[in-house]
């Protein structure tokens, strides 16, 4: 891992820490917990990547841990902005998380683990991508809240790059994926911080 990669990851961790410390205070209890989980995973993941290098991505638990970012972020957004879907989305997120843990922890033949991951990840990713942009377009929030949606798109890109890399069918080469990952994480986190600041 290059010095630049370490700097990018350190800034990402600092931004995530800033968001946890200052960026979510106005929200109610459940979104605060949900956002703390997602930015907390980013913070700790950044520190672990700095400490251990990209080798840490080979750990089997990475898929589960990185899934926490979109699931908890989407849950927080739905709880805050789509009051009528709160409970149903929370139940969906919890069941989805348990399903991912089960299908990734025990040997299950066939494509079920991939289908479960794609379904849960996909819905959470689309929620983070679309909800802020639609709300910004509809003037229900500040226009800059759309940055959260851009962050959501980037998290989807990063998630897909890593997921396909781990399945042995990489979209980009491993070297290129690992080259763009620190910058991608930084821009994504920056988008979230900017978006939430005005959301």
């Amino acid at each position: 891992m290059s010095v630049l990669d370490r700097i990018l990851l350190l800034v990402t961790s600092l931004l995530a820490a800033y968001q946890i410390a200052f960026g979510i205070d106005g929200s109610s209890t459940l979104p605060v917990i949900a956002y703390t989980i997602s930015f907390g995973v980013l913070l700790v993941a950044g520190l672990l990547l700095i400490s251990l290098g990209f080798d840490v991505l080979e750990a089997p638990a990475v898929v589960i841990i990185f899934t926490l970012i979109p699931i908890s972020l989407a849950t927080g957004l739905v709880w805050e902005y789509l009051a009528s879907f709160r409970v149903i989305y929370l139940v969906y997120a919890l069941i989805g998380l348990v399903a991912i843990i089960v299908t990734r922890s025990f040997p299950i033949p066939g494509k079920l683990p991939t289908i479960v991951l794609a379904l849960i990840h996909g819905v959470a990713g689309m929620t983070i991508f679309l909800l802020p942009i639609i709300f910004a377009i509809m003037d229900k929030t500040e226009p800059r809240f759309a940055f959260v949606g851009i962050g959501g798109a980037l998290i989807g890109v990063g998630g897909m790059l890593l997921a396909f890399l781990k399945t042995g069918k990489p979209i980009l080469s491993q070297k290129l994926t690992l080259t763009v990952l620190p910058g991608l994480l930084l821009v994504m986190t920056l988008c979230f911080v900017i978006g939430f600041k005005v959301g």
Partner: protein
Amino acid sequence: MFTKLRPYWSLIKSLQTGLLLSTGLAGYMSARCPVFNLGTMVGLGASLALSISGSTILNMWWDRDIDARMTRTKKRPLASGQIAPNEALRLGLLLSLSGVGLAVAMDALYGLIIFAGIFFDVVIYSMWLKRRTAWGIIWGGISGGMPILAGRVLGYGGFDWIGITLALGILFWIPTHILTFSMKYFDDYKAAGIPTFPSTYGFHMTRITIAVSSVLASLAMGFASYGIGMTIGYLRVLIVLSIGLLSLAAVSVFKPTERTNFGLFKYASLYMLSSMILMVV
């Protein structure tokens, strides 16, 4: 000039000294933040830096024979003969005495705690217990907790439960740091005849000890931070960092690998440094 000074620089283990120095500064600032007295801050930093560097040199002077037998440490300046033992002894004593002298001049109780830190570290831990029992690290841990306690006492004006809890936090953090290290360099310590937790109680028990001490360290840092009056936002960050530490400790117990062990070692240092920063910002 630089080439000549380099061996002396490595004598003080700058990263370890810097980390302990940061705990002392954080201990002071936990009681006096924002800091308005720059003179006291400079005196605090200088006395801590001198004392910690001095005791580190004295430890290296005493342990030069075992350092020479370990692959990891045989290139150290004293073990490899780059610096004469008497020269290192004089330098270590000079720095230690200067540090304690400056500390006593600032505040007698503060100076006493600094002296106790050096005494526990050099005499009790290195000279007496290190080669006899694996439990010697407890005293290493107690001496490691002295800078933050000293800083807190200087800032607060006496002992309080927060200072004691902060020192306990460091005491419980030390096993996470040192025991992971002693597992990584198990063969080295064995070759040098130093009793460690892994060689005495086995790797599994050592990992459990690390996990338990991580829980206790996190709890102590959390309680102390709450007592200091840390804002809810910073507390959230501390909780997240603590969960990271506890998760790594748990993984190292249930799915132990060399990488997890080393990751825990490095993360524990980052955790402590981050905790100190959170206490002072």
